[in-house]
């Protein structure tokens, strides 16, 4: 009996304790007159750049004393789960971050507020235009990064192979990779994931196109497409580690490169800082093309929630976060993703940083960029293209069959 009374009292206490503590992030409504609170959700500050984002927020709040920015940072892997649930429940932040691939889905579903009177001149035009949908501006570019070819200078020297140059083609890469691969000492010549992201890029490097101009039909199952897919898939096991060698396990490629066992590596410029302390000399170069050059570019954008009550303040904040000099300086100083500003003089400090020596390549690559092909059912398309290519790489299907199957399935997604 005493036990029961004790229990009941305890439960009542816990209930009271847990029910009354509503979080600071939810108690926003009570902002004083003339002040507004902008809630901002993002993924790109997670794991390393939280403090840099705080610095930008502070600079913004100093310049706009009437606006308080409340930041919520969610890891990329869980970001969209959380964002969708919040949109469904009507609690999404006033402003949030979207990568270009997901932008189309949100814009075409009416979740985003149209941005009015944006000063577009501060942004690099191609990046700004990426966030237009049906002739309306639904976002501003926040940052971008691209993919280049990393290479281990020591391994090239050791094997007596000439280092890659900007004029390299696939053939040069293949020949060098073959010479650099030494299965006895577990050194691999090349690494390029077999995935959607790599495929649309090599397709562009081979002069093919993924979708038709109206984005109503997939066109990648072409002679160019088959050749591009073969270029990618036939590396596996020959000059590039297979899944059975460990490819696909977390951070496999970065560890392999850093341990000096990988000669060439197709990856993003976000790997500059993690590789800064690699115990050997390495550099980067624009990726080789076949019939033409094409470098993958990934863009993050900033958007305003269509349901936001603080749309004006929110737009002010995202404009600041996208294009202010404070942001540009912070991004460059901390090796975050690159700012999307039009004025290239502002990017100069980036080139002055030490490793890798050939930072120019990052900007040269931008001359011939390729953005991911985007449809409304983006994730499904990416998953199925990757799955088909993986099947081909594992030898379960021919490349031709895999591409034909992928094309049929993507067309199915475009119809629904």
């Amino acid at each position: 009996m005493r036990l029961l009374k004790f229990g009941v009292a305890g439960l009542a206490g816990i209930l009271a304790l847990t029910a009354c503590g509503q979080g600071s992030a939810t108690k926003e409504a009570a902002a004083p007159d003339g002040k507004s609170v902008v809630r901002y959700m993002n993924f790109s500050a997670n794991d390393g750049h939280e403090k840099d984002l705080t610095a930008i927020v502070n600079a913004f709040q100093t310049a706009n004393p009437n606006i308080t920015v409340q930041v919520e940072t969610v890891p990329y892997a869980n970001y969209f789960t959380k964002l969708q649930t919040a949109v469904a429940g009507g609690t999404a932040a006033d402003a949030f971050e979207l990568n270009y691939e997901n932008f189309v889905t949100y814009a075409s579903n009416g979740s985003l507020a149209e941005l009015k009177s944006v000063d577009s001149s501060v942004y690099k035009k191609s990046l700004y235009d990426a966030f237009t949908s049906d002739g309306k501006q639904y976002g501003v570019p926040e940052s971008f990064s691209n993919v280049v070819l990393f290479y281990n200078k020591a391994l090239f020297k050791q094997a007596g192979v000439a280092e890659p140059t900007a004029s390299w083609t696939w053939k040069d890469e293949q020949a060098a990779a073959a010479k650099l691969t030494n299965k006895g000492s577990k050194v691999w010549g090349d690494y390029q994931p077999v995935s959607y992201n790599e495929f649309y890029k090599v397709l562009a490097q081979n002069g093919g196109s993924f979708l038709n101009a109206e984005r109503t039909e997939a066109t990648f199952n072409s002679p160019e497409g088959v050749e591009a897919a073969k270029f990618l898939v036939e590396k596996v096991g020959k000059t590039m580690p297979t899944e059975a060698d460990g490819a696909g396990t977390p951070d496999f490629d970065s560890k392999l490169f850093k341990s000096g066992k990988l000669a060439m590596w197709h990856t993003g410029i976000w790997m500059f800082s993690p590789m800064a302390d690699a115990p050997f000399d390495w550099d980067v170069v624009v990726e080789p093309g076949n019939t033409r050059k094409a470098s993958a570019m990934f863009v993050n954008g900033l958007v305003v929630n269509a349901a936001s009550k603080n749309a004006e303040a929110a737009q002010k904040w995202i404009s600041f976060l996208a294009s202010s000099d404070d942001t540009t300086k912070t991004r460059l100083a901390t090796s975050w993703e690159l700012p999307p500003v039009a004025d290239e003089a502002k990017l100069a400090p980036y080139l002055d940083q030490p490793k890798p020596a050939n930072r120019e390549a990052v900007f040269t690559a931008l001359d011939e960029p390729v953005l991911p092909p985007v449809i409304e059912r983006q994730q499904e398309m990416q998953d199925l293209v990757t799955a088909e290519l993986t099947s081909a790489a594992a030898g379960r299907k021919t490349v031709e069959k895999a591409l034909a199957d992928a094309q049929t399935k993507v067309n199915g997604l475009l119809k629904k």
Partner: protein
Amino acid sequence: MRRFLLYAAVLVGAAVMLFPFLWTVITSITPEGSLADGPTLVVDNPTLDAYRTLLDAMPIWRILANSLLIAIASTVFQLVTGSMAAYGFARLNFPLKNVIFGCYLATLMVPLQVLVVPLFIEMKTLNLQDTYFALLAPTIASAFGVFLLRQAVTAVPAELDEAATIDGAGHLRIFTTIVLPLIRPALATVAVFAFMGSWNSFLWPLVVIRSPEFMTLPLGLATLQGQFTTQWDVVMAGSVVSIVPIAIVYLLAQRHIIAGVAHTGIK
């Protein structure tokens, strides 16, 4: 000889069970701990850097306190609500009893992944999103606990109740003085699983919590995985931090699971 074989088998098995945990600990103290190369059993320069990084990366004490509060509350609630329901189903007779018990079990049959969005909208409607209560709510009662405890109550000989009823005891007294002490092993088991369920829960806290001051441990550990790279030594340090409290809870509960024999007094 048989005993020796038994020992050998059990010890080999234990090594296999212990191995991943050991690997976790070792990776967490290896400088630049990596998973790509497989585990090593000897660490050249053991370091606590990963744990320091963990301390810097997040308000770990606050996060641990949140997780503990919710896990303990959820355990206490499930023990109380579960044992009462178990008594009801095992000892009382009422119409539709099996159907109602079926409804309890049915709550276990729809995956959380599909309930998360409706539940979130419900919480928002009740204006309870982003509170401690929201974290706790789905684990106040669990059909798993009710079921496990019902099995235990059913195993308590009915003669004991009957004797007490003759002595004039009511349901409440039978429940608290006869049934509860006799189902201690099952209560301890439920406590372990309730604590663990809450402690490891990820999807629901992810969705319902917005304010950093309510962050729980699995959410905190998830922030260690970057979009492009992950510091595995820090992730592993986080895993060690998350395993140790449940291991302690289990060790505490285990005494009761064993002690159960001495106290049952069933002759």
